[in-house]
Structures are given as structure tokens and as C-alpha cells.
């Protein structure tokens, strides 16, 4: 198998975790050695259920961790939260995955999401009140914006091994944020320093050449976080994340090593969204099972709706295309004949089948898109039952991986991951 990049084509929650787990645990082809994270941070919750019923929502560790010996690498594009790493490793240990920390490498240039960032994030969201952006409360935006404003002072993973430098950066960070927002609920720098030093002495910190070496040694799965429709530049501003959620970061890491990968887009047969923002096909009347997503204090409720082919095509366009589709939740679709597909919008009296991509990095354009979407009505049609066929028609990409349930045993595959061509 070649390298694969897994990206969610919606608002997240499409099933990246289960797809990554399947890619890492399949028996055919050369075994995957490592999962690389290339965006987001500990806010991720990529659910995996093993054949024997164990469940874990992967946050910082790669969703391939249940597969024996599969490493996780947090690249320089990931926001690393050492405290979350410790807690997650402990949970994995309780599930019988001992030594997860031994399988983790972290790029020294990766930004640290600290308790100060998180406290500032929450203070700001509370101040916004009803106008919340749907932040996860994990300090992701705070971490990214501080690094943009103060690139030299932003704490990075490598600093954990340089205690005096780390202490200075943490104190500066705390002083700046409290100067702006008032006192923050967070431990003193010395205590954070102590935990981060323990992190550095336990987890292997590496530089960029490490990934290049691993990429040459065997197949790697790049696990995206969140979804293309939440992308910082291509999502519906301001209801977005501070992270590039397309294939771009992964492609950059691959290019640095002179390598290529299959671009795999993941989508459900219906749509979901956590928190506020445009959701044209939302249908509160749908009652679909959702075992692993509930209401979150910082994001608001979990929303459900019908498949939005217009948004799906937009996501594929702004992500610069996909080689193949992984289609998940086919079991839900089979049981819920009330699920529709939206192939066009009614917006300002006009019919719209394509959401045009704007110029790169034009947030005004994205804001106008948001405004338009909030006033748009979906036009539904009957999918006719064969979801894989429908998706292939709408996207022009083969649905090579089909998931009918939570475990790896519930997946069927065709080329390049299976032995036969797609039945469709």
C-alpha cells in the first residue's frame, strides 16, 4: 500500500478514526508503520471501536494505535498538549494498549497548547455569550493566534527539553494573556514546566528529517483532524477552526520527503455538525443513532441533517480534489429511508448547484458565503437506496472504502485497498 491522506469532507465526525484504524489493521499489503497527524490538536475525538468492543476517542494519538506497533507522529503542524497526551496514554493503558508513549514522536517545532491558552480561550468564549464560534475550549485558536503574533515567544514542543527557555516563554505568555484578559484559571509556570519536562524526558522529540526517513521506510497514514468545511480559509467564516483542514499540510510534508500519497476523502451518507454555523440540510426531525457524540459545554449541541452534495462538491473543489472516497455510516443509511440528498440550493430565488470557490485567503468572500448559506434552502431528492453509486455520481470519485459499522470488520474495500474493483 502507498501512503494515504485521510481528510474529512464535511464538518468533522465523518469517521476518520474508523477509516484510519481500518487502514492500519488490514492484513493485505505492506503494514502501516505510522500515523502522522498534520493539523488541529487535542480537540480531535476520532472514535475507534475494536472488534472486541473496546472504544477510544483518539485526540493526540493516531487512530491506528490499536493496531499492533503502529506509531504516532505529531508533525510541526499539530498543536500539542502534553497534559492531554498523558491523560490519553493513561486511558489507552486502561484499554490494554500499554506503552503508547513509547510509540509517540513529536516534532520539536510543533506549538504547545498550554493551560494559559485554554483558560484564555474559555474566557473569550464566555465573553462572546450567544455569539460563540463553536470553539472546543481546548485553546486551539488561542495557541495559533499567539504564535502568529509572537512567533519567537510561542512555546514549542522542543522547549520542553530546555527548562529555562520554557519557563521564560510560559511566564511571558501568562503575563501577556492576563494583561489582556485579567487573571486566568491556570497553574503557575513552574508547575507546568515540571510536567512538560517530564513529557520531554518520556516522549521522543524529533526534527523534520525523522518523518522523511519514516516515509521512505514504509506506508504511512496521514490522519486529518476536523473537516474541510471548517478550514480556516475555506470554511464558512467565522464559524471555522484555526487550522488548515484540507490535504495541504500533509502534501507539504510528503513533498519535503519526495513522496506521494492517495488522497482519501471521508463522508457519511448524511451530515452532522458540532456547534453553530451554516448547515443548510440540518433536519432536527431526524433521529439517527450517535453513540459517541453528545452535547459539549463549549461547542453546543450535535446537529444532524441530510447529505449536502453541493457542500460536498465544494469541499472537494477547495481541497484540490480527491483520488477516492471512504463512505461511512452506510448501516445508518440502510435503516433510515427518510434520508434525502440535497443536489441544489434555493438561494435568493435562484437555483444553485455549485458553491463557487472564492479567491485564496479571502475571508470577506467566505463571510459572504456564510451569509448566503444562512439564507439558503435545500432542494431534496430521493437517493434511491444505492448510496455508494449516488456519492460516486455526485463527486466523480470512486467510493473505494465502505463502512457499515464501527469496527474494522464492518468495512468493505475495492482498489487500491481491496482485491476487486468497486461493485458500483
Amino acid at each position, binding site marked *: 500500500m502507498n501512503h494515504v491522506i485521510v481528510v474529512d469532507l464535511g464538518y*468533522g*465526525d465523518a469517521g476518520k478514526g474508523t477509516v484510519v484504524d481500518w487502514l492500519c489493521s488490514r492484513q493485505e499489503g505492506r503494514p502501516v508503520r505510522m500515523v502522522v497527524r498534520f493539523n*488541529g490538536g*487535542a*480537540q*480531535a*475525538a*476520532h472514535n475507534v471501536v475494536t472488534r472486541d468492543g473496546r472504544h477510544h*476517542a483518539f*485526540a493526540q494519538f493516531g487512530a491506528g494505535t490499536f493496531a499492533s506497533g503502529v506509531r504516532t507522529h505529531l508533525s510541526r503542524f499539530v498543536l500539542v*498538549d*502534553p*497534559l*492531554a497526551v*498523558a*491523560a*490519553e496514554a*493513561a*486511558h489507552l493503558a486502561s484499554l490494554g494498549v500499554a*506503552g503508547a*508513549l*513509547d510509540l509517540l514522536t513529536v516534532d*520539536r517545532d510543533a506549538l504547545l497548547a498550554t*493551560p494559559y491558552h485554554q483558560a484564555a480561550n474559555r474566557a473569550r468564549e464566555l465573553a462572546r455569550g450567544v455569539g460563540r464560534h463553536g470553539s*472546543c*475550549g481546548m485553546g486551539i485558536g488561542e495557541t495559533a493566534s499567539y504564535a502568529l503574533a509572537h512567533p519567537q515567544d510561542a512555546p514549542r514542543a*522542543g*522547549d520542553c*527539553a*530546555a*527548562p*529555562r*527557555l520554557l519557563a521564560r516563554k510560559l511566564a511571558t505568555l501568562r503575563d501577556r494573556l492576563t494583561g489582556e484578559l485579567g487573571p486566568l484559571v491556570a*497553574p503557575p509556570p513552574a*508547575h507546568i514546566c*515540571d*510536567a512538560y*519536562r*517530564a*513529557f*520531554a*524526558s*518520556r*516522549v*521522543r*522529540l*524529533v*526534527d523534520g*528529517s*525523522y518523518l522523511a*526517513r519514516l516515509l521512505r*521506510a514504509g506506508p504511512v497514514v496521514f490522519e486529518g*483532524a*476536523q473537516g474541510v468545511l471548517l478550514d480556516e480559509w475555506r470554511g464558512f467564516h467565522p464559524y471555522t477552526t484555526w487550522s488548515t483542514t484540507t490535504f495541504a499540510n500533509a502534501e507539504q510534508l510528503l513533498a519535503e520527503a519526495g513522496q506521494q500519497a492517495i488522497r482519501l476523502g471521508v463522508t457519511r451518507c448524511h451530515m452532522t455538525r*458540532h*456547534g453553530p454555523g451554516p448547515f443548510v440540510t440540518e433536519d432536527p426531525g431526524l433521529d439517527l443513532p450517535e453513540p459517541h*457524540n453528545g452535547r*459539549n459545554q*463549549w*461547542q453546543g449541541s450535535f446537529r444532524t441533517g441530510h447529505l449536502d452534495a453541493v457542500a460536498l462538491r465544494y469541499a472537494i473543489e477547495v481541497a484540490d480534489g480527491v483520488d477516492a472516497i471512504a463512505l461511512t455510516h452506510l448501516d445508518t443509511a440502510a435503516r433510515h429511508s427518510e434520508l434525502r440528498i440535497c443536489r441544489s440550493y434555493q438561494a435568493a430565488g435562484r437555483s444553485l448547484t455549485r458553491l463557487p470557490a472564492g479567491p485564496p485567503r479571502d475571508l470577506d468572500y467566505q463571510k459572504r458565503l456564510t451569509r448566503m448559506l444562512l439564507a439558503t434552502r435545500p432542494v431534496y431528492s430521493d437517493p434511491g437506496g444505492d448510496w455508494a453509486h449516488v456519492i460516486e455520481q455526485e463527486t466523480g470519485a470512486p467510493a473505494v472504502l465502505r463502512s457499515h459499522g464501527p469496527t474494522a470488520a464492518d468495512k468493505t474495500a475495492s482498489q487500491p485497498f481491496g482485491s476487486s474493483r468497486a461493485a458500483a
Partner: protein
Amino acid sequence: MGSGRWSTDVYDAAARFRAATGASAFGHSDGGATTVHPLLDPRDVARESRDSGEHPRSLAIAVLFDVTGSMLQVPRALQAKLPQLLGLLLRHGYAEHPQIMFGAIGDATCDRAPLQVGQFESDNRMDDDLGRILLEGGGGGQKTESYELALYFMARHTFLDCHEKRGKRGYLFIIGDEMAYPRVKRAEVRRVIGDGVEADIPLAEIVGEVRRKWDAYYILPEGASYARDRQVLRFWRNLLGQNVIELADLDAVCETIALTIGLGEAAIDLDEGLADLRDVGSLASATVSKALATIGSGRGTLVVAAPPPDLGRPGGNFRL
């Protein structure tokens, strides 16, 4: 996405990283053990540094440190710092395929753990060996420990592809604060390592054997009982010439070792190496600069000469 379910506590996290097996704790000692961990037992074993597909040109690096009582808190500090060594070497390109082994030296005349030896590893697995090292804290009060027994093991029980295939010596660092006994004792070799040797071996002879395959350094750190001790320094300079390093700040131990290797590999000169340290924000550059003053001695790029023909002679001309 969107969980926050790994709600985290800074104190829990620190404890969890330290509690996890491996690098961060002298787990074996703290677990109440009083004997050498079976994986580190030097009896009837050899340690090999071999090339592999992934690491076709391995370079053997061994770091052995004195764990007797005179070293005070130094061994624990070393344990916390040494896991950074591999990353430093790779990050700066000082060595392309380093294989690192850690070990510990006690006193064969009275300790239960006179010698502990880990495996050569190309990834961070050797850090697990660090956690297995028994910190006995014993030793006698005579400013002498069993370094010679460790040197015997390194001379006759290590096998290095870098040396055997490419004629290139590995790097051996001994961190301690005392002197060696004058002879490798036959009875101790039999008891600890399991070899039958015909007679005791003079120290100078075993040092000569070691230096055929190892470029050997002695590091005397601040914070140990005999830091800056003239007698100890003179003793090791007689055996190893310029390769005796006084380390003023234990925090800089990895940087010092890494830079020494970088200089030896001619990957850098001293000024470049110190600039590397400053570039990554390391606060160790002044300490390292001082520690390596004798080795760098303002000459710029160092010439790595072939091993000397007569290695038994103290202060041999093996390095400019």
C-alpha cells in the same frame, strides 16, 4: 472532534509521565530492586552495534556512568538528561546513524551491581535501559571504583560494525568522579562477566585495548563528591590525554557529548557547534564551550587521526 474529554491536570500529567515505564524514572531502583536487572547483567553476554537496512552505517556510542554514592544526585540528573542525546545528534546532523548504549559502573569490591550494560539501540529503546539501571549508591570511601572492569567489558565484549567494517572507532563516554583500580582482577572478571582470564590485567593494557575500537572520554561533572579533584583529573589525563572533560553544569551533559561526537565526526567545528546550540535556544553553550576548550583548543575543525599504533602509552597522539 470536540471533546475536551481529556480534561487534564498538570500534576496528574507530570506523575503519569514519570510513572510510565522507561525513560523518566530509575524505575528499577525505585521499585525496591537490589540486584542488577536481568537485561543489564554483563555476565556471559556481548553487546553488538550492527548495521541494518534502516541504519546502514551505524556509529556506536556508549555512555557509562558511575552510580556509586560519591556521585550524589548526579546519576538521577543524568537519567533525566540522557534521553535527549539521540535527538541532539540527529537534529544537528552530528551523526547519521548513531547507536547508543547506556551502562552503569559500581564497585566490584563491595557492591552488588559492579557493572550494568544496556543494548545498542538506534531509537529511544535504550532509554528503557536507563530506567532499569540500579542506583546502588555504594562504593568504598577510597576515591576508587571499578572503572577497569567496565573497560574490560567494553574492550572484549562489544562488537562494532563501524569498527569492524569501516575501521571507524565508536565513542565511549565514562562519567564519574573517581579513579580506577590499577588492575582488572581475574576473580572479578570471572564473577561479574563470566570470563576465565589467566591473570590480572594492568589498567594501561586494558585501556589500550579499549581505545583500539573506542574513542574514549572521561567526563568529571560538577555536583559529584570529587568534582574538580586534581588527583582524579591527573589520573585520567595520564590514561586518556586530552579526552578528559570537566563539566561545570550537568544540564549540558548531552550537548557536551553530542558536540564532542560532532567534532570527532568532523561534522562541525567548535564555533559552528556552539552556534548550533545558541540557535536552538540552548543555554548550555557557555558550559560546553568551556568543557570542550581543551578538545577544540581554538583549532577549528579537528582532524580525526587513525588510532595510534601504541595505544597502551598514556596521552597517545590520537587526536589533535
